């Protein structure tokens, strides 16, 4: 519930900040509100870090899925560093004094965070693939792959508008130029996760994957619109894009919460089986009978 509230507040703040930037760019409220995302994202990624670490601890040592959650935790931790750095930069006035030097170093945590995220998602896919999920793709999946890849040149063409494209450091400029690809890779894996989610056929784990997919796709779409000159001509679309972009990081801890629910449910059930196994099995068979007794043979 807290996370959903955070998501809503972030979306409203993002949309409002965008509209205010268009109308009153030099207003103090506009300046402070446009930087509110640093604090909001820092909170969101702190929740994520805490939850991913707890989830990783629930997996056997050395398992691929444990590695996946740990990589997600690393991605969250680096995102916290990044937003902490950007928030400090705003408060210290570096956005005005050293925007192309010290401030542009934020690209390092940005890139690292995306790399860890992509690696975590690939590890997760690998774990599902080991049991036969996420190996067969349909025509719609290929269309999604194509659509996401189509965003790469769109973002790349607008790279001049990206955060640190004018950095004094060549390395930072290269890292910034790589951001379309680094964003596209997790989004491509999101398509795979979407397929896995469908193959799962429901359950708590599938809900977690759904939120993960939404997180990955939403931020790519938001960045595509915000990076293009399109939003300058249509303020409402710009506001909507920024609202989505600011809401997206909250979907990450929300996905973690849903995954954590799997552990909580399973632990509670396991404890019940330890206490009174006969009653639980009788209850289970009753569920089976109730669900299917009246169902005709297909």
């Amino acid at each position, binding site marked *: 519930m807290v996370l959903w509230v955070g998501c809503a507040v972030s979306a409203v703040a993002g949309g409002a900040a965008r509209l205010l930037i268009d109308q009153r760019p030099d207003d103090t409220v506009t300046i402070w509100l446009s930087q509110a995302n640093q604090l909001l994202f820092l909170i969101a990624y702190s929740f994520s870090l805490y939850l991913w670490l707890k989830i990783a601890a*629930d997996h056997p040592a050395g398992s691929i899925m444990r590695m996946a959650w740990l990589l997600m935790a690393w991605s969250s931790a680096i995102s916290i560093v990044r937003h902490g750095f950007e928030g400090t930069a705003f408060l210290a006035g570096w956005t005005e004094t050293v925007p192309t030097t010290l401030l542009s170093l934020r690209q390092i945590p940005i890139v690292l965070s995306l790399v860890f995220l992509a690696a975590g998602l690939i590890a997760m896919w690998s*774990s599902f693939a080991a049991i036969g999920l996420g190996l067969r793709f349909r025509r719609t999946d290929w269309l999604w792959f194509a659509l996401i890849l189509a965003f790469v040149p769109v973002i790349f063409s607008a790279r001049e508008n990206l955060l640190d494209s004018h950095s004094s450091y060549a390395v930072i400029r290269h890292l910034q130029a790589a951001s379309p690809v680094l964003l596209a890779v997790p989004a491509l894996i999101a398509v795979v996760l979407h397929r896995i989610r469908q193959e799962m056929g429901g359950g708590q784990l599938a809900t977690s994957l759904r939120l993960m997919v939404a997180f990955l796709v939403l931020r790519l779409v938001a960045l595509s619109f915000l990076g293009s000159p399109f939003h300058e001509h249509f303020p409402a679309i710009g506001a909507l894009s920024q609202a989505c972009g600011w809401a997206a990081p909250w979907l990450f801890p929300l996905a973690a919460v849903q995954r954590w629910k*799997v552990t909580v449910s*399973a632990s509670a059930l396991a404890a019940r089986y330890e206490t009174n196994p006969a009653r639980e099995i009788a209850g289970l068979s009753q569920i089976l009978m109730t669900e299917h007794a009246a*169902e005709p043979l297909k």
Partner: protein
Amino acid sequence: MRDDFSNEHFSGTEWLSYLDGGPGAATGNEMKTHVENCPECGGFAASIGAVRAILSEQAGQLREATALSDEALDSMLTSCFSRLRSTASAEGRTRWSASEAIVLLRVLVEPICGRGTAGATIDLALRRSTASNEGSVTEGNWSLFITNFSDLMASVCGSAAGRLVNRAGFCLAVARG
């Protein structure tokens, strides 16, 4: 047995035995040598082989066309169990067949990991547990199946889910298959 399934050299029974690998090593070898050297019998055997291949292919297509989905098969299976138990109290039940116990475990984990994940992990655990036992889980390899299923669930859904499968699986008393 139809007598018109014959030619000048062998009766229908002999031909059927030959095609099935009988009737005995000595007679079979004699007939094989004859078929290899006799153009008429060789042609006859080849035509029968071609017909068998066509029939096999057609049967495969028919099976494919009438194949039931996993969901339909599951539904049929669980409905059968329900009907069989409609007169008996579940609480009085102490032993389950391996197939029944697997369905119960599946019902247990589906709300957590989903129907597809449950099916995939069970299938894989079955394959890993029955490689030397002609594909069936019995009382003898139930422990192995549960260990495999538990490990797979732990790898995908976490140790808590693996522990749940382990505890529930070993609580289910499986009858000798």
